[in-house]
């Protein structure tokens, strides 16, 4: 399987709608400081259902919504969707693709996440099941965020053992 495209709508520094097309193989994301590179990584973790806002460098989920200096234009909504090509030979070509979407909507006391699989509303546990079937694990080292290398170097021998235990 591979990720075919990402659509960001009002997520962090991505105002309006932006579509990013991905390809198989080795892709390098490059650009100046503060331009939004790490925000792309955050958007991937977000749409794949990460629960903690800290893991996407936000104090509260609401901080993920795009803010500009022009207060009037700020909305209370953001969403990210990712199209996955499962490359599953047993399915028909048009059934091989899955679109997963996560949106953040304002509620009385905060923000609520809604998940959609191919347009149908689903629960977080359905998303977790899908990821399991695709062997995508958010808590293993397949996502190494900026600064993680530093944390690994500073890890004590005791913490390293705990890490190995969690993998077992």
């Amino acid at each position, binding site marked *: *399987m*591979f*990720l075919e495209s990402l659509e960001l709508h009002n997520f*962090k*520094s*991505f*105002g*309006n709608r*932006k579509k*990013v*097309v*991905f*390809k*198989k*193989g*080795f*892709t*390098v*994301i*490059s*650009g*100046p400081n*503060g*331009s*939004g*590179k*790490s*925000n*792309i*990584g955050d958007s*991937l973790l977000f749409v794949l259902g990460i629960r903690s806002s800290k893991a996407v460098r936000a104090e509260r989920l609401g901080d993920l919504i795009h803010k*500009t*200096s022009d207060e009037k234009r700020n909305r209370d909504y953001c969403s990210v969707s990712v199209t996955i090509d499962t490359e599953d030979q047993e399915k028909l070509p048009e059934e091989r693709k899955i679109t997963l979407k996560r949106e953040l909507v304002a509620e009385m006391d905060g923000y609520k996440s809604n998940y959609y699989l191919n347009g149908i509303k689903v629960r977080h546990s359905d998303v977790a099941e899908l990821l399991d079937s*695709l*062997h*995508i*694990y958010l808590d*293993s*080292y*397949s*996502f*190494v*965020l*900026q600064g*993680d*290398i*530093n944390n*690994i*170097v500073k890890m*004590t*021998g*005791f913490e*390293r*053992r705990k*890490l*190995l*235990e969690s*993998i*077992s």
Partner: protein
Amino acid sequence: KRKIFLEIYSAINENMKIIYRELSGGGEASLEMSEESDPLNSEIYIRARPKGKSYSKLEALSGGEKSLTALAFIMAVQRINPSPIYYLDEVDMFLDGSNAERVGKQFKINSGTSQVFAVSLRKAMLKYADHVIGVTSFDGENTEVFEKSVSESGNMEVEN
């Protein structure tokens, strides 16, 4: 539980030896337990021997040597549960030119079986990339994303 732990430990150890040798151009690295007799209560250390040097604990290495060893450990753990996608954000930041190149080469190899995304400011990474996504912001508040051809990326403001 103990049996599984020991299997994981020795698998990571084996992977680490292979990967560190590649990344450092000929050095050796391995895991070490403080109490072999009681693995579930012991501490786990990383020892590395950069090419041409003697063995030392992770703490005694230089900044770049430490980060290369940490990267080898991460990649050894990744091999335990192979994933179809990898995302690595500026993991080459402490490395000199030749270490960064070897890491780029390894990412290229891994991209044969998985989709690999690496955020990087360095030419040593771009050299091995199949695709480059340029990211910028014209007004400071909105991110713009565009596809760059790999040959074109040589003149990106990337490094220096």
